[in-house]
């Protein structure tokens, strides 16, 4: 009698707790924590991923290439990387797929002093430019120059480690530097004694996607629902961050040594790239085949990408909110 009661009790207890295991996901970022990552951090901090049945760990990355190879090798299930870099990697056989283009516009460009009047690409002729040895800009720059008939031989390009580009620009060693809107441009603008401007590639033929959510193909096949849940919760994070920027940035600040103020500035500058006209019309993270075509073409024709990748091998919109 006692035994039966105990057995029933244990069985009931077993049924009382739902055996729903949270899907573990490692989300490998494109770079170190930046303001534009705030949506992901607030989604994690406020339990949006958890509510969607996901146990997400966010890891800062070391560049789009690092993020792509980490996801491709399966060390992370999902990642965040520049669209152009992803297309090139997939053309080389990387088993990843893009499921949402969070940053809808290419965020990099040429940073210079406003008074120097480098307002058009060909204005670069006769100037010196700081560049970096690796990263999304390394591929984008030659394409940008080819697209806009900038003669590389007339531009003195000096390679610096990425942390040294802005200091060398500010100390006058170079006339201009390549950089990101929410990275180098902000740093230069805040520390310079004169007006600083950025000539964004986006406005000069680089109507392409930027940082996007990518997924490992095997994981995608086996866990489509988890991927859907991740994308939806991330977009929820974006929407929340738009309404509550400081709270969202605070969530990011808790995970890095970069000061809150810097992160907030980065987020505010990045937001128009996330929530641009396309995103407002078609949804955050939305993607069109035409823009993807442009994203690839620029790199195939002027950059290092060998061939165009068929759209179905590169991205899918099926996980975006419909």
């Amino acid at each position: 009698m006692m035994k039966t009661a105990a057995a029933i009790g244990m069985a009931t207890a077993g049924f009382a707790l739902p055996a729903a295991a949270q899907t573990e996901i490692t989300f490998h970022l494109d770079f170190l924590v930046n303001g534009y990552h705030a949506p992901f951090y607030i989604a994690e901090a406020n339990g949006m991923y958890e509510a969607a049945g996901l146990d997400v760990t966010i890891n800062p990355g070391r560049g789009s290439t690092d993020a792509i190879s980490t996801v491709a090798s399966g060390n992370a299930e999902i990642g965040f990387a520049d669209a152009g870099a992803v297309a090139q990697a997939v053309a080389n056989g990387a088993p990843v797929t893009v499921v949402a283009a969070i940053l809808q516009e290419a965020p990099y460009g040429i940073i210079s002093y406003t008074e120097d009047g480098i307002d058009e690409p060909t204005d670069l002729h006769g100037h010196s430019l700081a560049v970096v040895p690796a990263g999304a800009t390394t591929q984008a720059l030659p394409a940008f120059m080819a697209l806009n008939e900038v003669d590389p031989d007339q531009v003195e390009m000096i390679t610096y480690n990425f942390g040294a580009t802005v200091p060398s620009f500010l100390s006058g060693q170079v006339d201009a530097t390549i950089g990101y809107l929410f990275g180098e441009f902000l740093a230069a603008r805040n520390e310079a004694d004169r007006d600083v401007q950025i000539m964004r590639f986006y406005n000069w033929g680089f109507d392409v996607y930027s940082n996007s959510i990518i997924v490992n193909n095997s994981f995608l096949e086996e866990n489509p629902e988890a991927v859907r849940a991740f994308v939806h919760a991330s977009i929820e994070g974006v929407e929340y961050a738009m309404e509550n920027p400081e709270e969202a940035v605070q969530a990011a600040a808790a995970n890095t040594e970069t000061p809150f103020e810097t992160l907030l500035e980065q987020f505010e500058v990045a937001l128009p790239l996330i929530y641009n006209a396309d995103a407002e019309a078609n949804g955050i993270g939305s993607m069109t085949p035409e823009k993807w075509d442009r994203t690839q073409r620029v790199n195939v024709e002027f950059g290092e990408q060998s061939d165009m990748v068929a759209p179905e091998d590169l991205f899918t919109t099926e996980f975006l909110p419909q």
Partner: protein
Amino acid sequence: MGWLRSRWKSILFFLFLIVLWQVAVDSGFLLRFIVPSPTDVLGEIAGRWDRLLMHLGYTLMIALAGFVIALAIGVTMAVLIAHSRFLAESLYPILVLSQVVPTIAIAPLLSIWFGPGEVTKLIVVFLITVFPIVVNTTAGLLQVDDDLLYVVKGLKASRWKIFVLIRLPNALPSLFAAMRISITLAVIGAVVAEFVAGSIGLGYVVFTGAANVNTRLVFAAVVLLGAMGIALFTAVKLLQRVALPWAQGTKEGEA
């Protein structure tokens, strides 16, 4: 305090340099953005003390763990190389190759094969620190006084006895010399590893600061790394003094 008395001149000189540095930044001679002043750096350290301490603890742990692994494997390799021509000829080329290929170049590869976690970092630290240990210990094991060897061989000493009674103690001073080098390399290794993967550690903080052009943060982390390196180096020196009381050099300095 005798230590202090004998070094007051160098301490004074060091302080003078610090003051010079402070004045150079305050007066605008050095761009504060590019070179923060000593007070800026100390302020940054003080302001972030809790978090920086956490990062320091992590880097220290990685450096020490990697160092201990390198010590264990390195000494083992040295023993094998010293006792077997075949192993010497097989292992040495691999070892030298591992040194010639820059670790910072293969670290990203390692993080793909082993993931961006602690395993990769320990491998990086190991690769950077093991070489001096193997080279020095092997030399110490082999460079034994020939006459001493004859004396014990005349007593029918087995290879094992010779190893334990003579080669091993003979190798200790060389091993400690290598340890002094390797412990500082271990810190460098941990920093390199953190540059390449992960989200914690003083190396990661340096990287974050550099990426965001936050030179104060970079300097703060570098100062702490320097302090850590000096502390570890000194610890090994003191350890030698305790472990090898018979192997102290001349008063002024040691090899």
